[in-house]
Structure formats: C-alpha cells, structure tokens
C-alpha cells in the first residue's frame, strides 16, 4: 500500500462481501421457493425475498466500486484521499440505509418499482452518500495526476450518480414510469457501469501484466467509446412493448446488437495484455478473476444479451426465464467477478501480506463460475420451453410452469454451488492467515 488512506477500501470491501453473502443466501431461498412453493409463503413471501436479493446485489456492487475508487484513485493521482473521515461517514450512511431498507422490507414497507423499492429516506441517504463520495474522490482527482484510468472512472461514477436522480422520478403514467425507470437500470449496467468496469480492468491489467500505460489507455478509450455509442441508443431494446413508439424496434435492435462490441473488446483486451505482459505477478487469483470476468461478461451480456435483443425474438421471449438467465450471467460476469478480481488483488495489499491462499480463492472461482453457468443453462432451457408453450402454443402461464420443475430443481442445485463458492471466497479473503499450500520448488528456467 503506497498511501495510508487507501486503507478505507478495506472497510468497503468487507461490507460488500457481507452483503454478497446475504444476496446469494436470498437467491438460494428464492430458488428453493421455486422448487417447494409453500416454503415460508405467509411469513416471507417471494416478492420480499426477491427485493432483498436484488437490492443486496446492487448495493454490494456499488460498495465494491466505491472501495475500488478509494483504492485506485490515490495510487493513480499520487496523493492521499482528500478526506478519510468523509469516506467513513459515507460508508456509515450506506450501511444504515441498507439495514434500514432490509428491515423495512421485512415489515412490509417498500416501494413498488423493481430494484428501486427502497423507502424514500433510504433513497435520499444514497443520494447524500453519492454526493459525499463524488466530492471526496473528485477533489483527490483534481489535485493530482490525471490518467485515462481515473478520467474514465470519474466520468462513469459521476454519470451513474447523476442517473440516480431518475430513481426519484415516478410518473403516474405507467408507460412514462417504465421509460424513465430504464434510465437508471439500463443506463447503469449497459453504459455508466461499463465505464467503471473498463477503468478497473485497465488498472488491474496495468498492475498485473506490466504492459505500457500508453497501450492500455488507448485501448480503454476505444472500449468506452464503443460502449456509449451502442449503449445509449441501445436502451431502445427495452422500449419495444411498453407504450413507446414503434421506431424503437429498429433503433433498439440495431444499436443493442453493437453492445456486444465493448464486451468483446474488453475480453480481447484482457487476454492480449496478459499475452504481451512481461511481468509474472504472483497474484494469480486476481489474474484468474480478471480474465474470467471479461470472458463471462462477454458470454452473459454479449452472447446471452444478443440472444433476445432483436425485436422479432424479444416479441416471444420478453419477460420469460430467458431474461432471468441473461440477467444472472451478465451481472455475474461483468460486475460480480470484476469486483471479486479487485478484492483478490487489493485485499492482500491492504492486509499487508504477500498474496495468500491462492488455491482456495481459485477453487471458489471455479465453483462460482461453474454454478452460475449451469444456472444460466437450466434457465435458458426452461425459458425456451416457456416461450414455446406460452407464447406460441398459448398455454396458460401456471400450466406451463408446472412442466418446468426439473429445471428449477437443477437451478437450485447450481445455486448451492454458488453459495459454497461465495462462502469459500469470503473465507479465503478474511480468515486464512497463511499460504495454505507450501510453494513448490522453483520452476526450472527454460522449462
């Protein structure tokens, strides 16, 4: 650790991992309710558990981004963070808000727009925390060295915080409500968060591979250009059937098809940098997560996104288990795995030890990635049958669902693998104190 203030990232990462645990346990319970629907049906209905699952996901990913920013901005700007105290205040507000939100969901107090169910006071808390954060990192950034990595990171963070304003805008007209809702949801994951992802990935590549900054930064601008050029008008792939004009079918189809490009570019970028890199960095776990993230993001967002993005296809698949399959693999690859890559890189430094427990960490990668992939396959099969039986044959929803039991059982099984992987990851980050496997003999040169 070069700068003392980077230490605040530690508190952010630990909080994020705790919420990650809650998120996947919530997911597991949801998966179980699909298998055995009477479970807790009166005490803790499906909709409440689902709010906890999705909200915990979004909050922990954001906490991870904030932590990553507090870790990398000092290093890139070559100075301490403007105010460590503000950073902790920001974290405290977010923790209180999160606990408050979960508590009020459990007693039945919540909004009714998907993902944005937080009570108003929590939404304001998030806004205040976002402002504190922006002030804190911006002052650090402005006073120090400016690099493409921090430029892009700052731009992504500013824009995503600004878009949060749309969380407060809820028109009475349902179609308007839906249109502006996507300004938060789509323009987060398919525009502004991609900027954050590219910046963090660039930072990790810089540290892990030792490739020239100049090369990395040029790649980054190309990647984020393709992300915004496609992703902004790509919002149209959500405007096909909600009361918006018909021309979105063409605009959405064409531009969202190009959304595959930045994900392909990020995957190519990661592999080419590792290929070209001269450095043999000992933190192999961070490297595995970085390559894994960009690859799974390409499949989850790029391939599974394209699968249902053309309006002729989406007419039939819209709002089926196909959507759930894509949502899971995309979020996992692009944002979960990326955050875990950053944690794997930074935690050993923050805890002041050499990279440790690589083996457990890497095992957790394969468990989680295997689990999420299998979950995606089972949901894709379930969704294909659902699309055919319900949208083409015209059988009633509940009757079709009755025929999908086997897939939901397999989805639950893959969920168990994901939970075990997540717990193993958290354990390897926080508990293990020494290298679990004795390092082998040094490789023979020239081998």
């Amino acid at each position, binding site marked *: 650790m070069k700068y003392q203030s980077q230490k605040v990232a530690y508190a952010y990462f630990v909080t994020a991992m705790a919420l990650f645990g809650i998120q996947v346990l919530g997911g597991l319970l949801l998966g179980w309710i699909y298998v055995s629907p009477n479970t807790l049906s009166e005490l803790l209905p499906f*909709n409440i558990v689902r709010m906890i699952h999705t909200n915990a996901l979004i909050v922990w990913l954001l906490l991870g981004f904030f932590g990553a920013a507090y870790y990398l901005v000092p290093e890139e700007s070559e100075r301490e963070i403007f105010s460590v105290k503000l950073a902790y205040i920001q974290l405290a507000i977010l923790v209180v808000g999160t606990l408050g939100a979960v508590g009020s969901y459990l007693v039945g107090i919540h909004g009714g727009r998907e993902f944005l169910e937080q009570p108003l006071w929590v939404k304001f808390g998030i806004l205040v925390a976002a402002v504190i954060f922006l002030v804190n990192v911006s002052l650090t950034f402005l006073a120090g060295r400016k690099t493409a990595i921090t430029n892009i990171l700052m731009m992504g963070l500013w824009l995503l915080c600004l878009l949060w304003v749309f969380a407060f805008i809820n028109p009475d*007209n349902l179609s308007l409500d839906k*249109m502006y809702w996507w300004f938060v949801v789509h323009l987060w994951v398919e525009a502004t968060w991609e900027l954050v992802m590219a910046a963090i990935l660039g930072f990790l590549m810089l540290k892990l591979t030792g490739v020239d900054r100049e090369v990395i930064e040029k790649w980054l601008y190309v990647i984020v250009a393709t992300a915004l050029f496609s992703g902004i008008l790509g919002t149209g792939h959500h*405007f096909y*059937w909600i009361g918006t004009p018909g021309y979105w079918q063409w605009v959405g189809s064409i531009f969202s098809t190009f959304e595959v490009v930045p994900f392909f570019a990020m995957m190519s970028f990661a592999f080419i940098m590792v290929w070209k890199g001269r450095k043999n960095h000992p933190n192999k776990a961070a490297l595995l997560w970085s390559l894994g993230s960009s690859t799974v993001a390409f499949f989850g967002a790029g391939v599974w996104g394209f699968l249902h993005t053309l309006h002729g296809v989406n007419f039939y698949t819209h709002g089926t288990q196909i959507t759930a399959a894509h949502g899971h693999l995309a979020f996992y690859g692009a944002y979960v795995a990326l955050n875990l890559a950053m944690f794997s890189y930074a935690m050993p430094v923050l805890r002041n030890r050499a990279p440790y427990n690589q083996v457990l960490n890497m095992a957790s990668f394969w468990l989680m990635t295997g689990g999420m992939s299998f979950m995606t396959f089972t949901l894709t099969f379930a969704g294909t049958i659902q699309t055919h039986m319900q949208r083409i044959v*015209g059988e009633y929803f509940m009757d079709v669902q009755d025929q999908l039991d086997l897939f939901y059982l397999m989805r639950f099984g893959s969920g168990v693998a994901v939970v075990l992987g997540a717990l193993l990851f958290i354990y390897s980050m926080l508990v293990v104190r020494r290298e679990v496997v004795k390092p082998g003999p040094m490789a023979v040169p020239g081998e």
Partner: protein
Amino acid sequence: MSEILTKSRARNVFYGGSIFFVVVFVAMTVQSHRHIVQTSTAGMELSDEVRHGKHVWERHSCINCHTLHGEGAYFAPELGNVMTRWGALDDPELAYEILDGWMKAQPSGIEGRRQMPFFEITEEEMRALAEFLRWADQTDTQNWPPNDAG
C-alpha cells in the same frame, strides 16, 4: 492499433461521439414522452382512481412476483393483459368483482402450488387497482403479448 489512432484522438472521438448520442437520445425521449401521453396511453383517462390504483400496486410490490408489460419478476403471470383474459376490459364493475374475488381467495394453500399472499386492501383501493389494471391493458404495446396467455 495504428499510429493514426493516437490516445488523444481516441479520447476526443469518445467525448465527441458520446455527446452526439446523448443529444439524439434526449430528442427521441422527448418525442416518445409525447407519444405516450398523446397516443399510446390515451385510450382511457388517467383518472385519480387509476393513479390511486398504481400506488396500491406499488405499495404491495406486486412487481416482484408478476410481470407487467413483460417487466418484473417471472414467478407469477403477466398482468398487463389480465383484464383481457378475464373479459373485463370494458366493464369496470366486472373487473372489480373478479379481482376482489381473486384477491380474497389468496393464499390458496394448495400444496405444491405457488402461493400469492393475502393483502389487506379496502374496497376503495380494490376498485382503484382494478381501474389501474384496466388502464394498463388499454396501452398500445405494439400488439404484445403474442396471445392472451400473456
């Protein structure tokens, strides 16, 4: 990458292009906003009762089990066309009665069947909710869903 594409050129293309696409997107949003208000949702008045119904819908977080116009959760049936399914699209009284009967029969308690919770909803709120669902159903959704199954 070649010498023609220097880092500063790449950066300028990124900034310039992004501003261009934001401007186009905002213009299309303004037009879509108008289209929604004046055309696609103009089939039925957005009355106070419909507004109230939307709040009832939100307060109970129905969206985290059901889809509405295909968005939401995939645990329970699509509700954007439920009034069509019930044959109550043009009949407020019938819409209210079927909805009220349905909601009061929950949870079904049938073993192995997905359960919908029981909600405390007054008559006034139930009428509003029915009107909200009728209002949503008359939206011009470019003929989605493909059939009444939703």
